[in-house]
């Protein structure tokens, strides 16, 4: 999808712009997330991490969304999915927290290492990512928004999911309800054009998902999700709309998936390497680096220091997580009901 074809149906409201400081913070977070993502993928190949789903190619859209919530919503809460490492990291999940999850170690904060990595809940960090069943969190996010509205809170709910999830019937039901009740929610669709192996052409007969927004009488936009500033602008407008009682919107990010669906997948049987090569030219990390260095905001020295800091942090976190024990088997019967 070329940028010229992208359409924006959202109202043309001004967003609180990203500052230089914001862009550098986003770059630092993106470096950390990319380094962590590469590390856990390597640890999977070493036999240390049982399952990994990569966020590589999605990071700009995810970080722009979090910054849009922070800077434009009085309060917010996120329902995320399994490919949202940059969202969870930006919300405060540390590299060691995540690594304990990938290695299923004691002290993993989201589920006590009961669930796949990144799954469970951190309400203290404003996110829930409970299920491995795609789309189940979309009506739940709408329910959370209903609760916030009923209590008169000024919370904006952000619900993240991929293009594959858009095919679920519950997603349609949830969006319909959200629009009827003008709930304060934004649906962030990270469209990497593949539902595991199934391409867009076999997922929907329309060119871009956001076209469905019209059927729900909500604004929908498709934006280059590898571009931090464009993503931030689209996300911010949707967040602001939700915050002032204008109801839900769909923000579809056109992103890339550089790695197989998960570490258990083999994408060589369904993707042309040339396609991935082409997609690499849109690498959100490279694009942000080019933006910052090209405008003189990031010197080579500072860039090298930031990369080293990210590597050091991941190294320390990896050692610490690897040294942690597995959970005690006594934990297995706990938290079934309020009585246990």
């Amino acid at each position: 999808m070329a940028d010229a074809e992208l359409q924006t149906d959202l109202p043309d409201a001004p967003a609180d712009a990203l500052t230089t400081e914001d862009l550098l913070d986003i770059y630092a977070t993106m470096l950390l997330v990319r380094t962590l993502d590469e590390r856990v993928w390597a640890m999977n190949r070493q036999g240390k991490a049982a399952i990994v789903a990569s966020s590589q190619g999605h990071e700009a859209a995810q970080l722009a969304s979090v910054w849009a919530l922070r800077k434009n919503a009085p309060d917010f809460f996120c329902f995320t999915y399994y490919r949202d490492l940059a969202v969870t990291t930006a919300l405060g999940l540390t590299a060691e927290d995540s690594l304990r999850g990938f290695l299923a170690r004691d002290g993993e904060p989201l589920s006590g290492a009961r669930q796949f990595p990144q799954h469970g809940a951190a309400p203290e960090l404003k996110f829930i990512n409970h299920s491995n069943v795609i789309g189940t969190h979309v009506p739940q996010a709408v329910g959370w928004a209903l609760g916030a509205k009923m209590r008169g809170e000024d919370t904006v709910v952000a619900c993240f999911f991929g293009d594959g999830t858009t095919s679920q019937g519950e997603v349609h039901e949830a969006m319909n309800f959200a629009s009827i009740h003008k709930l304060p929610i934004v649906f962030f669709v990270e469209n990497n054009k593949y539902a595991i192996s199934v391409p867009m052409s076999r997922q929907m007969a329309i060119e871009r998902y956001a076209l469905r927004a019209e059927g729900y009488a909500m604004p929908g936009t498709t934006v280059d999700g590898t571009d931090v500033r464009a993503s931030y602008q689209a996300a911010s407008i949707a967040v602001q709309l939700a915050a002032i009682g204008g109801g839900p919107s769909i923000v579809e990010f056109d992103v890339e998936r550089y790695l197989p669906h998960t570490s258990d997948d083999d994408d060589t049987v369904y993707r042309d390497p040339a396609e991935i090569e082409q997609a690499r030219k849109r690498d959100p990390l490279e694009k942000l680096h080019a933006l910052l260095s090209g405008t003189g905001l990031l010197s080579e020295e500072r860039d090298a220091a930031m990369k080293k800091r990210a590597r050091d942090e991941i190294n320390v976190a990896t050692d610490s997580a690897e040294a942690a024990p597995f959970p005690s088997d006594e934990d297995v019967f706990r938290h079934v009901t309020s009585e246990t």
Partner: protein
Amino acid sequence: MAVVTVIEAIREAMREEMARDSSVFVMGEDVGRRGGVFLATKDFLDEFGEQRVIDTPLAEASIAGIAVGAALSGLRPIAEVQFADFIWPTVNQMIGEAARIRYGSNGKLNVPMVLRSPYGGHVRGGLYHSQSVESYFAHTPGLKVVAPATPYDAKGLLKAAIRDDDPVIVLEHKRTYRSVRGETPDEDYVVPIGLAEVKREGTDVSVITYGLTLHYSMQAAAELENEGVSVEVVDLRTLRPLDTETVLESVRKTSKVLVVHEDNAAVSVGSEVSALIAEHAFEYLDAPVMRCAGPEIPAMPFAPTLEAAYMPTAEKIAAKLRELVAY
């Protein structure tokens, strides 16, 4: 003490809880101006307003899913599925999600919601307005499942369910709605989840049952009394967690057990009750555990002759009891 029907008891339970706690609200198909197809929420819209009495689109999966999310956010939703036959789209949210969220979040989250639904047949409901759905939910750790049969239990258990911090499936037998009357106290009370009740004391044989077949079992017990047989009738009331102790106590007393329910027998609540008795009270038994349950056909048919062939009636229960007593 007022004498009310089951549906009136249910309505009162919800009205009192909504008046007591502003986080309680109802959502479902036709619950607003229509007051629910069985009038469970009659006049609620006028009393509590459309913020707390939400008419939903005809979409059961999201009725459950939105209730799960609202419960996660701290509210106490009562979601109504109009007929239990329509409950299958909610399985993803109730069994897949609500039941597992406390566990999957290591106790960080909980889902204090109620999903109410009229179930069961013998009302000429045919395949899609008669189903017994309890076993699917009672199988699932993390859920609580209640199936009250009297106005007192319906009101008390529904109140307990609304106040519970876990997801509770409340199954209301639709034939009891207007046909069963009974007293309920004027003052506030709950029936604790997880407690069975001996509805009739006896010494010769125990019937373990719940739902509509409680009433048919009571009729059969009265009939057997005329024949000189003393039948004890245990109403499970809660299907998960099962009150094992009350069941075993009755078995130890009578040494003969008939398990009765409308649901078909295979992999059912009766299967679990029978297994528990075999495991924990084998040496007290003077006869094999017998069952009187719905047949192994997909659902209760519409024609009166076919419906009668399905239903475990007082006559069928009495016949099984005579067989058991004669063993």
